[in-house]
């Protein structure tokens, strides 16, 4: 109650600022209260897919901070269920969307940018780019070379384990494939499920495909394969499935009926030894309510496979972004505010505010205060910064129709149902499916 009041007071004070802005706006220039591209006061709207409790709270905290810092700009947030938002993105962006929206980098960003459904923000980027590393800068560029998004958080994919389980059995972290397999054998002997795999939703298995392909065939081949420049019938893809089939016997039983949360539960309850997933697995540990469990969570990068590409240390580290729509009816009036918002979310201090509510999302800005990171986050930052190549995850690097439930998700489930099969015909299906897709 008290907090709310103080926020209102801030808004009230800020209101005078926006009044000034309004008077200035009547003069025919919306940007007069600030220099350059941004505007204070006024209003803007935001379409958000952050529906999980922590993420939603984080978004609200971020927006409140923006309002008070930007002369009381009124921000209308429209929060839509994550899956629904994703499924309806195409009609959303073509209809009457909000000014700004939450989205993903990678192919999914470039696709809508190239369709003319996003507003380029090169001017904002020029002002904030010194706060970002090369990798992040590359992730927000559209096909036309313009910048369409501001990266705000990311999370790496790695092999998660419990420190106490490893200590109790005297396991050591494997750094190469043979050690990894030997560890699986030992875990099985010790009555553990060596590797938790939970692929009911279809996308978790894509993470394993990504990392094996990256280690075995390198970043360039992986991105070319996912964008159709290499055929799915390539023998290098066959090699990925062959390699993969060496560890599938160590997976959770009934894996195609388990959700990723149930997989995380196996790790949490010490039933499974390892789990290849994104850092968001920590959210499940946090939700268990016992901080001791979260303290035990640790991870290591996927083991080397003994190829030249091990040196790339490539991994999936999907980046979440904010973008500006094109068809928002209010955007022309709110452009200054929306750009101010984009500038605001690029600040490390803003991103930390969000991260405090959603610890699975690491700030992207270089000036984020890293001193408050717990060991797990610090380690995540470290393995991402030491990676020479970063991918966005299968379903962000490839076409959504190809990676979706009736595409690659289904194919990988088919593979996992019988991993020892000759994958020739399955790869033929993948290629035929890719070839059947209309040009983008």
């Amino acid at each position: 109650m008290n907090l709310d009041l103080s926020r209102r007071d801030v808004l009230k004070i800020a209101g005078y600022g926006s009044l000034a802005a309004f008077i200035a706006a009547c003069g025919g220039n919306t940007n007069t209260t600030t220099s350059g591209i941004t505007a204070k006061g006024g209003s803007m709207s935001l379409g958000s897919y952050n529906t999980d409790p922590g993420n939603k709270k984080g978004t609200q905290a971020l927006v409140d901070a923006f309002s008070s810092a930007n002369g009381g700009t009124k921000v209308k947030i429209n929060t839509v269920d994550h899956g629904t938002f994703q499924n309806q993105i195409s009609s959303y962006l073509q209809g009457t969307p909000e000014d700004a929206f939450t989205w993903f980098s990678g192919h999914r960003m470039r696709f809508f940018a190239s369709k003319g459904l996003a507003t380029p923000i090169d001017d904002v980027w020029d002002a904030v780019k010194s706060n970002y590393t090369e990798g992040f800068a590359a992730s927000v560029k559209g096909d036309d070379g313009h910048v369409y998004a501001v990266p705000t958080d990311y999370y790496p994919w790695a092999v998660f384990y419990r420190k106490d389980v490893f200590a109790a059995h005297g396991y050591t972290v494997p750094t190469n494939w043979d050690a990894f397999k030997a560890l699986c054998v030992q875990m099985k002997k010790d009555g553990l499920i060596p590797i938790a795999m939970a692929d009911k939703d279809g996308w978790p298995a894509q993470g394993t495909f990504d990392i094996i392909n990256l280690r075995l065939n390198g970043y360039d081949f992986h991105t070319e394969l996912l964008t159709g420049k290499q055929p799915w019938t390539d023998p290098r893809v066959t090699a990925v499935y062959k390699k993969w089939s060496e560890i599938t016997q160590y997976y959770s039983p009934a894996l195609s009926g388990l959700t990723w949360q149930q997989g995380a539960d196996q790790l949490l309850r010490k039933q499974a030894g390892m789990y290849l997933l994104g850092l968001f697995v920590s959210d499940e540990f946090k939700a268990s309510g016992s901080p001791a469990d979260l303290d035990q969570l640790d991870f290591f990068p996927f083991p080397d496979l003994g190829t030249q590409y091990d040196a790339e240390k490539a991994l999936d580290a999907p980046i979440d972004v904010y973008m500006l729509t094109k068809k928002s009816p209010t955007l022309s009036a709110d452009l200054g505010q929306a750009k101010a918002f984009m500038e605001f979310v690029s600040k490390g201090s803003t991103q930390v505010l969000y991260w405090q509510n959603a610890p699975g999302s690491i700030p992207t800005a270089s000036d984020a205060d890293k001193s408050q990171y717990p060991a797990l986050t610090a380690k995540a930052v470290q393995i991402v910064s030491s990676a020479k190549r970063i991918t966005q995850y299968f379903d962000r690097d490839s076409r959504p129709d190809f990676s979706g439930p009736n595409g690659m998700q289904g194919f990988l489930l088919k593979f996992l149902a019988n991993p020892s099969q000759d994958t020739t015909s399955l790869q033929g299906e993948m290629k035929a499916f890719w070839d059947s897709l209309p040009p983008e």
Partner: protein
Amino acid sequence: MANPTTSQAPARTKAPEAGALVTTRRKRRYTLLTRQDKLLILMMVGVPLALDLLLIWGPTLASVVLSFTNWDGIGPVTGNNIVGLKNYQFLFTGYTLFWPAFSHNLIWLAWLTFIATPLGMFLAVLLDREMRGTRIYQSVFFLPVVLSLVVVGFIWELQYAPNDGFINNVFGLVKSGKLIDWLGNPRINLFAILVAASWRHVGYIMILYLAGLKSVDPSLREAARVDGATQVQTFFHVVLPVMAPINVIIVVVTAIEALRAFDIAFIINQGKNGLELLSILIYNNSLSEASLVGFGSAIAVVLLVISLGPIILFLSRTMKTLA
């Protein structure tokens, strides 16, 4: 219906003068309808017809047109988008999911027709016998019907979950380590969700059929009993023929339920890995992020053609009963 102006029969018998007057004066084709009647009919037929054309046949025809394009749902449809029969060609020859989805719909139809619907009818017959506690049984069997299939999906997902699910635990499969992956194994997951769908469908059919049974004239059964017919004979030779209109509705409802099956499979795993259905292919191709609107429309047209079968059956039977 009570209003004489909306009912044609009384108008025909009670106001012939008006019509006769019109014919004699103008030497026109004989008509029993006054101008007001005509206007009323025009309104009553015209407005629903216009809405039907606008809201149902418009989009339907649009789908048919879109099925010849490769439109991605963004921007206008232009001449460049037209690809002829390519979508259909790929659908029938290249798309590996079409025939599985088609056969899953057929299995769904067969399951409902031969297992769930007869079970619902059987329950209705049992409950019609005025046994003790019939109200309670009715409520119990009918309860799932008020739940949406999405909720039914959630409920059964919990029952079927491999490790924490009720079924694997109650049969001791978790303890013995022989987990059955009810929803993940493509050989059995379709039947697993058919059980869930039937849980609801049985109650639905039961209540429909029960309503029909209540309207059967008791004297027919009495007559049958006097003639020495057994219970089974009475049902198959007396009650069932009398129930013909209800039977048609039951058949059509069953067929429609099978064709529009979507929610449960979608909730379980977005319709992949053995749960592909035509409706889900339409959704995943054209309405989701994939935006293959043209290809999705082609599947929709195929489903439309299939659906016309039961619709025509239903309409022709209804027309016959009315005539």
